[in-house]
């Protein structure tokens, strides 16, 4: 067999409809958002829970009521350590994360729920700080926390505080968004620098003896999304917020779901100098580092300029760039044209990006 045949055989396997879960126990890799997480969802959760609302495995499920009203419904849990980091804290993440899952589904967020899991021994003053942050973040975003719950677990069973949020939102009747809308020739837009959140948290853990002013980008995207949809309407084909697993994982999911190839340009992808430096020292590729306030929008080529201008006019999209294009070739794959003049595959990682040794 020659190289090409081997590559085609591997690609066929990779593109198979569902991933298999071969592990005997849950490891941290299953929580990293990469292929191990996908295997957990596709091989264990989906078969047991299968229904038409869940099946698309999108950021939010879309419920259609009898009068034609469409509601988006989403949930997420937050277990970040440390609880506070430059640029945000667990409460801000919990509010923004669920708002963003609704927003990229094309929904105007209506209300959130918050479930708090508290560890025995957590200082009330500390809890009060996070609850205040929860309230303030929700008010800033204009999305109320309409219901909630608290539970306490024994000391040692949680890292102080876990938060789970759910949210509902209203989808405009005309909205048609999703990976199935992606077409060859579409443009890929990114709202700003990548990797800020993940590196901010990594540095804040204090294990690296790295210092630097890296701030999380956590932010609610519903305003930016609303502006984009108002300007470009149905020519916006699909949106994602590239959280865990980063831009690389989000684009891979889109390539796989849409059966298209995505080609991106390394030199067009903005990375803050501090983030690039920290990533370089650790041997981590910023394409795989989490973001909590960035938008990937896939739009028809005819509106690419307008979409970019609209994003740049919004405070959360000032550094927006056109990073790539959808192609028919190499369906399911993401290809990066490197600054150096070569090209390479950008794959989904198995687990967390691991720092290199030397």
């Amino acid at each position, binding site marked *: 067999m020659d190289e090409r045949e081997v590559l085609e055989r591997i690609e066929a396997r990779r593109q198979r409809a569902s991933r298999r879960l071969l592990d005997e126990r849950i490891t941290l890799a299953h929580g990293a958002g990469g292929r191990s997480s996908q295997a957990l969802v596709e091989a264990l959760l989906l078969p047991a829970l299968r229904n038409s609302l869940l099946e698309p495995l999108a950021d939010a499920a879309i419920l259609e009521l009898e009068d034609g009203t469409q509601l988006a419904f989403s949930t997420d849990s937050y277990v970040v350590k440390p609880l506070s980091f430059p640029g945000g804290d667990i409460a801000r993440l919990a509010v923004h994360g669920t708002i963003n899952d609704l927003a990229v589904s094309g929904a105007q967020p209506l209300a959130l729920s918050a479930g708090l899991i508290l560890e025995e021994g957590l200082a009330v003053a500390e809890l009060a700080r996070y609850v205040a942050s929860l309230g303030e973040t929700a008010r800033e975003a204009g999305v109320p926390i309409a219901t909630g719950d608290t539970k306490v677990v024994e000391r040692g069973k949680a890292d102080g505080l876990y938060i789970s949020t759910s949210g509902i939102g209203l989808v405009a009747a005309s909205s048609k968004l999703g990976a199935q809308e992606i077409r060859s020739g579409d443009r890929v837009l990114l709202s700003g620098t990548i990797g800020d959140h993940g590196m901010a948290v990594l540095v804040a853990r204090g294990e690296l003896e790295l210092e630097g002013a890296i701030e999380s980008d956590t932010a609610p995207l519903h305003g930016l999304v609303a502006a984009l949809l108002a300007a470009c309407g149905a020519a916006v084909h699909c949106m994602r917020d590239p959280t865990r697993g980063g831009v690389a994982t989000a684009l891979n999911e889109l390539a796989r779901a849409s059966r298209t190839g995505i080609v991106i340009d390394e030199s067009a992808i903005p990375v803050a100098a501090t983030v690039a430096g920290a990533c370089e020292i650790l041997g981590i590729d910023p394409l795989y580092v989490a973001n909590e306030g960035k938008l990937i929008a896939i739009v028809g080529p005819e509106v690419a300029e307008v979409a970019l201008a609209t994003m740049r006019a919004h405070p959360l999209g000032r550094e927006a760039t056109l990073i790539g294009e959808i192609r028919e070739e190499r369906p399911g794959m993401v290809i990066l044209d490197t600054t*150096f003049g070569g090209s390479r595959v950008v794959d989904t990682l198995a687990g967390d990006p691991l720092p290199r040794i030397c």
Partner: protein
Amino acid sequence: MKHLSEYRSGEIAAGLAERIAALVEPGSSYKLMEICGGHTHAIYRHGIEDLLPAEVQLVHGPGCPVCVIPMGRQDDAIAIAEQDGVIFTTFADMLRVPATNGSLLDAKARGADVRMVYSPLDALRLARENPDRQVVFFAIGFETTAPSTALTLLRAGAEGANNFSIFCNHVLVPPPLRAILDAPDLQLDGFIGPGHVSTVIGTQPYEFIASEYRKPVVVAGFEPLDVLQSIYMLLRQLTEGRCEVENQYVRVVRREGNERALAVIEETMEVRDTFEWRGLGFIERSALGVRERWGQFDAERRFELPGTRVADPPACQCGEVLRGALRPWECKVFGTACTPERPIGTCMVSSEGACAAYYNYGRLERRSERTPA
């Protein structure tokens, strides 16, 4: 990050690529081995092969510290990690390496206290913070990482730490190169020498490659332009009929290396009589162990280890890949039974492993061989 953009300039690269193409005699072939996994990673990450004419073939060498650790040693590591009261610390790369009974990550899921650290000094700090626990550091790497392990041993000695030890798996670059050069199945034309290792050992230890085996060596840095320039320098040596050890990485590497780093290694570690390498078998005087004087910090002396030699899985061809005899995609299980999420062999685990680098980044035909879409 001015530094980065300078060494990654596509414009300079294009010019260098033209000069490389001009050196290549049509119809001939040039097989160059990059010894170090860091180079393998850079080659795939930046798509460097796309800038090379089809006549130039890069062969991946044995310089991935994760890849060369045999399964028996990984079993030993897990056996230490699973002992009561132990905090086992490791660089992240080793977490997912498969052993007989799963990886360190699996051992962690079963209850072992396995923690990722970024430096052996972090492990020593953990020992200070946990006086009632035994903290073990999984020391791996070539001459690059050995000095930091050595310094940590010195510091542990100065602090009188009695709950800290290292499981020493430091290996040396020159011995496997001789093994590869002596192997009958490989025709190599030149070597890209490891940059970081050479900051410690200098360029002198490679001189036997030029003098005894008549092959050129160029020690190179890790930015893509470094690698491309070293390929140009190798091709020039070949076309001019020279074989020398040249230093492309002059901004960091000196012929005599770093004497202080070598001195701390010498003080705390000694060369083992023999050491097993994955895929390469036992190689004499190819690894470092802890000197007897520092024996209290040696996990091999402190803990009972199974020490069993475990044969590689029969399907695994990591050995051939590590020697450069097989390209990653030529391995029988590459990409099918052996993938980054379910690795059979070590080359598929570390991002510096040839198979993982090729699987994650390189699954494209080279531009010069690609049919237009």
